[in-house]
């Protein structure tokens, strides 16, 4: 095209979200040998926990698409969802490579890759995610609180994983750190804005925070995350809610079953399908 003002911007497809997603093998080029002294089964189970968290929250955030408060926020939430789905894909693939016994059985000759078998052919009882990520979306304020708390905890964790002995997990975490820093900042900024916006936004924010706070313990005790969240709440002039964690039987709420029924419907209808 002549007179193309964007020549410098549109250099290659890799910088579009699609560029990342297009690869067939998410772990292409990664060294997948499990290092000495690491139990592959434990490594796989750990990757599964991290992968399921990302998958389920990525799914919830993708539900915002075409429903956000404005177009700019629609694009922003989709970016966060895309990052998390990307993390899930890598982590589930890593889990499957480390411990193939985790992968559910599929019919003979099914072309479904291992990470998809894990995402689409396990039942709710086998999912390892925290209940925080499976709760149905509330309003925008609740989503802001959820992303803030989730990203802050996960960022602290991923920073520590940067010296994990498994090279693949280390690589995944290093990439995730950049993404999560952005998620945390996005949610932190909105947290402060909604706290200082209108009476209504403040009320909604506090309600959202109470919901999220009740499920926070499952993410683990983490002084670093604690400290960061404390600073954000301070900046917003919000006090941490005094809420008790809900008693949840069997590790999940019924919402996860509903979420999976929808998410897995097409894949399960075509166990031999190619997509």
């Amino acid at each position, binding site marked *: 095209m002549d007179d193309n*003002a*964007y020549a*410098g*911007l549109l*250099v290659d497809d890799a*910088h*579009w*979200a699609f560029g990342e997603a297009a690869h067939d093998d998410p772990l292409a080029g990664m060294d997948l040998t499990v290092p000495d002294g690491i139990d592959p089964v434990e490594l796989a189970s750990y990757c599964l926990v991290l992968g399921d968290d990302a998958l389920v929250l990525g799914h919830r955030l993708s539900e915002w698409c075409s429903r956000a408060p*404005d177009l*700019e926020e629609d*694009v*922003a939430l989709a*970016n966060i969802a895309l990052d998390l789905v990307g993390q899930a894909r890598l982590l589930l693939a890593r889990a499957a490579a480390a411990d193939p016994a985790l992968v559910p059985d599929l019919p003979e000759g099914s072309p479904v890759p291992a990470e998809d078998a894990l995402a689409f052919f396990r039942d709710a009882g086998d999912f390892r995610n925290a209940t925080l990520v499976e709760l149905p979306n509330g309003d925008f304020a609740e989503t802001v609180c959820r992303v803030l708390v989730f990203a802050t905890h996960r960022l602290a964790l991923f920073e520590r994983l940067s010296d994990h002995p498994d090279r693949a997990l280390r690589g995944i975490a290093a990439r995730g750190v*950049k993404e999560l820093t*952005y998620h945390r*900042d*996005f949610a932190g*900024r909105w947290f402060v*804005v909604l706290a200082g916006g209108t009476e209504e936004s403040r009320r909604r924010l506090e309600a959202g925070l109470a919901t999220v706070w009740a499920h926070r313990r499952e993410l683990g005790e983490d002084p670093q995350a604690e400290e960061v969240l404390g600073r954000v709440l301070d900046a917003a002039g919000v006090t941490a809610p005094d809420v008790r964690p809900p008693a949840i039987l069997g590790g999940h709420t019924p919402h996860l079953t509903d979420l999976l029924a929808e998410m897995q419907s097409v894949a399960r209808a075509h166990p031999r399908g190619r997509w």
Partner: protein
Amino acid sequence: MTRSEWPLYEVFVRSKRGLNHVHVGSLHAPDDALALRHARDVYTRRSEGVSIWVVRSDAITASSPDEKDPLFAPSGDKVYRHPTFYDIPDDVPHM
């Protein structure tokens, strides 16, 4: 419902070192900080190493392309003029 439209911002991106910032488009944001975030999300998909400027459209002073133009009598008008309502007739949509 009160009408609450965020101000318009113009976005300029330096896509790599050695190039000027180029105007790439506009967006709405409540303030400068969110405008910068929106610009990253919308216009660069957060690719690294790019430099972004955002500036409120109403802070830009522009020359008039044609001094005879009666609509722009005082030269040095704002680029962003106040919204006017256009009644747009039904028609065949073009995609």
